[in-house]
């Protein structure tokens, strides 16, 4: 329909219609439109099962292995964190949501480990840079948990303990 708000009508404030009657009523286009919507309607009524909608809380989408989901910290074989508190993740983090306090570790081959390690999931933008920065493969975003919900802001700030035991069946934040 050749009608634009920059057209002559808009400019002249509606002084005399340049459009022909049928066009002004849009009748033809209305019928075409109604044909389209009716087609969609009927198709969907009779092929309801083919609708692309995912019944979300019942059905979960499979985002594949590259989904960056809630973080977790890996453990060494003895159960202590693999993280050496190098702070590369917190340095690279664009939203500055990782805070780490390092401490000395008695084991000579470890030397350093995190005393506290918190991530503010509300601030996190799930960019995955922390995972890429980590030299020890200590932080991963492969839990598959993408529903990050809690009833207070504090609960979004997750700590070392949480992150170490954070798997798909783990506790929610």
């Amino acid at each position, binding site marked *: 329909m050749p009608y634009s708000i920059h057209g002559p009508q808009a400019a002249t404030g*509606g002084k005399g219609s340049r459009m022909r009657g049928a066009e002004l009523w849009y009748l033809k286009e209305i019928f075409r439109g109604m044909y389209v*919507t009716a087609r969609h309607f009927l198709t*969907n009524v009779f092929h309801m099962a083919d609708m692309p909608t995912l019944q979300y809380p*019942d*059905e979960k989408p499979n985002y594949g292995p590259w989904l960056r989901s809630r973080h977790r910290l890996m453990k060494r074989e003895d159960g202590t964190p693999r993280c050496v508190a190098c702070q590369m993740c917190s340095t690279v983090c664009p939203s500055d949501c990782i805070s780490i306090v390092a401490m000395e570790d008695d084991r000579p081959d470890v030397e350093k480990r995190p005393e506290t390690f918190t991530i503010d999931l509300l601030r996190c933008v799930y960019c995955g840079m922390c995972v890429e920065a980590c030299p020890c493969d200590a932080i991963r975003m492969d839990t598959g948990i993408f529903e990050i919900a809690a009833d207070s802001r504090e609960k979004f700030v997750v700590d070392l303990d949480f992150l170490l035991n954070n798997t798909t069946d783990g506790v929610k934040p």
Partner: protein
Amino acid sequence: MAEIAWALGKILFMLVFVFTVLVVMIWGERKGSAFIQDRIGPNRASIGGVIRLGGLVHPVADVLKLLFKEDLVPGAVNRFFYTMAPFVVMVIALVTFAVLPFGDAIYLGDKVIPLRIADLDVGILYLLAITSLSVYGIVLAGWASNNKYTFLGGIRSTAQMISYEINMGLAVLALLLVYGSTRVDAMVVEQGQLLFGFLPRWGVFLQPLGFVLFLTSVFAETNRTPFDLAEGESELVSGYNIEYSSMKFALFFMAEYASMIVAAGFISSLYFGGWQVPWLDTITLREHAGTFLGVSLWVGAVFNLLFAALLWKRYRRERGLLGDRRELEPLVLGIVFFILALVCLGAVVIASPWNLGEQGAAHFATVVQVLSFILKTLFFSWLFIWVRWTLPRFRYDQLMKLGWQLMLPLGLLNFFVTAAVVLLAR
């Protein structure tokens, strides 16, 4: 006394009818828009965690929620008019129904009970009068809310009503000429005959241009898309009802649907033969009542069985998908349909051969005719929904131009041509 009882009964029927259809329409609007847009639509609310009826429980839940919501009244409003407005809108939407016939008369012995509420000679003029009142509710709401958006919404609505009322009036006038009566029931009766021997003598065939004009005006009068400028979310937030909450808002909301149903009733009465079943007038219906009943029971049985089978299939297919009681729904509904099928079959077996007697046949005819009216009304109600999810909103200048520069001349033309034809035919 009996007169009053019958009148009350008819009013009750009308109210029940309107409110039931209203619920179905709200559901239809949500579900229909969803299907049109390739979505699934509401389907979560349930009764007992089992029965969801494809979202039909949602309107009920909504109403319950709105009932229990806090009734907020903003500080700066004019309380009296603010409170009155939603009632005005709702009442006006409902009283329009008074002149609408929803069936042929019922004959009880020598008593004739016409199936319409008010026996008014002015008939169709009543419709025009009342619908033009409904703008008051909206203007009142807009003004009393003391909010510039609501006010603009009210103003828009007024201008729009005034513009389109004329076109509606012109279309109706042409109809008056054709049918030669202002009474709606008389018009419906007229439409029971055949045109050229094969077409039902429906208004739409006699007045095609009038129908289009009437339909368009009705859309405008009910403030529905594409003429819902009074609500214009993009510029007026939600128009005249922004300041309303809880049940007052619900009244506006329901009134919109109620007036749509009324409008649908009028469209079907004026242009589609109202309660008339095409090609089957009352007499034919009564004569062959037994046969028709038998056939419809058979058809009913077959369809119910079909539904039951489909639902069973669905139950089998979807078992284990959701992992809770919701899975039982197709099973439950399937059983219901199966029972219905059995009932139909049983009725066929028990009641055959078919002889309803004169009285029974008359009642059967009435029921069929009322059903015919309801079906037509439902269809036109659906048309409102369908159009809403097809067309975008008009711009205000387009709206005015359409009303005054196109529809008005066409309406006049239609009127004079009809008058001439009627004059010549006489």
